[in-house]
């Protein structure tokens, strides 16, 4: 019986699977999934996580539950934003870029303001003063 497979086809299949996984991997970390213009979110912190793989804040903005993504933890901590400077219930203003997906309540922050203090987690991306 002739084998139903040939080497090139299975190699191509493997490559396609890896490419698909790799492309997905790209979306979350960079800025490709966010809008260009700046976006500002104000609300109350409902959860705070500073650690790998992503530092995140959950924010309640007028009853809407938002997920604010921040820089990788080492960078977020270097910007002075640690689990000590903010706590659940604090008012927060997050400035950054929101998801291209308009229905998705998710943004990536470049600047956070909590308790009157400003933390620039992406100093090179903050809006011009």
């Amino acid at each position, binding site marked *: 019986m002739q*084998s139903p*497979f040939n080497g090139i086809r*299975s190699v191509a299949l*493997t490559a396609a699977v890896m490419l698909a*996984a790799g492309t997905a991997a790209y979306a979350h970390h960079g800025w490709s999934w966010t809008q260009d213009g700046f976006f500002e979110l104000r609300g109350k912190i409902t959860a705070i*996580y500073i*650690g*790998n*793989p992503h530092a995140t804040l959950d924010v309640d903005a007028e009853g809407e539950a938002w997920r604010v993504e921040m820089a990788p933890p*080492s960078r977020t901590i270097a910007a002075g934003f640690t689990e000590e400077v903010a706590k659940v219930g604090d008012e927060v203003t997050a400035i950054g870029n929101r998801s291209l997906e308009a229905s998705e309540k998710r943004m990536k922050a470049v600047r956070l303001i909590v308790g009157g203090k400003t933390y620039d987690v992406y100093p090179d991306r903050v809006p011009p003063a």
Partner: protein
Amino acid sequence: MTEFFAGLEQLALARWLKASFIAYPVVNALHIMSIGALLTSVLLMDLRICGAFRSLPYAAFVALLRRIALAAFVGALVTGSLLFSVKASTYAAMPVFLAKMALILLAGINFFAFLRFARGGDEPAGSAILAVLSILLWTSVLFAGRFIGFL
């Protein structure tokens, strides 16, 4: 169970990984390396079981790739458990993470079913179905794993 997961997160190793600049990405990379080796060896082994690459001797080829796949799985298990410990309660509550674990379990059952039923000679009867199932299950584990970061 809740306390167990919270306890995992408090382990010194987990806390260190959570804040580390280098260690977490290294463990993550080793997880991906194990996954790559696992999927490649599983795919080649299963294709051979289905009748591809007939110029290669069945028993030796399958035995070699099975050994690589098992070692790669151990690597994925160790590195995956380390990644898990950082946010154990969060992962344990995620449907996609639970789906990934269930798929790994199914793939494991499929593996033992193969050892049990598909015996005797090259390309034993019925083995192709289990091999195709194996490819589908491990590929699904891969996709479920990648989606953990997005849901």
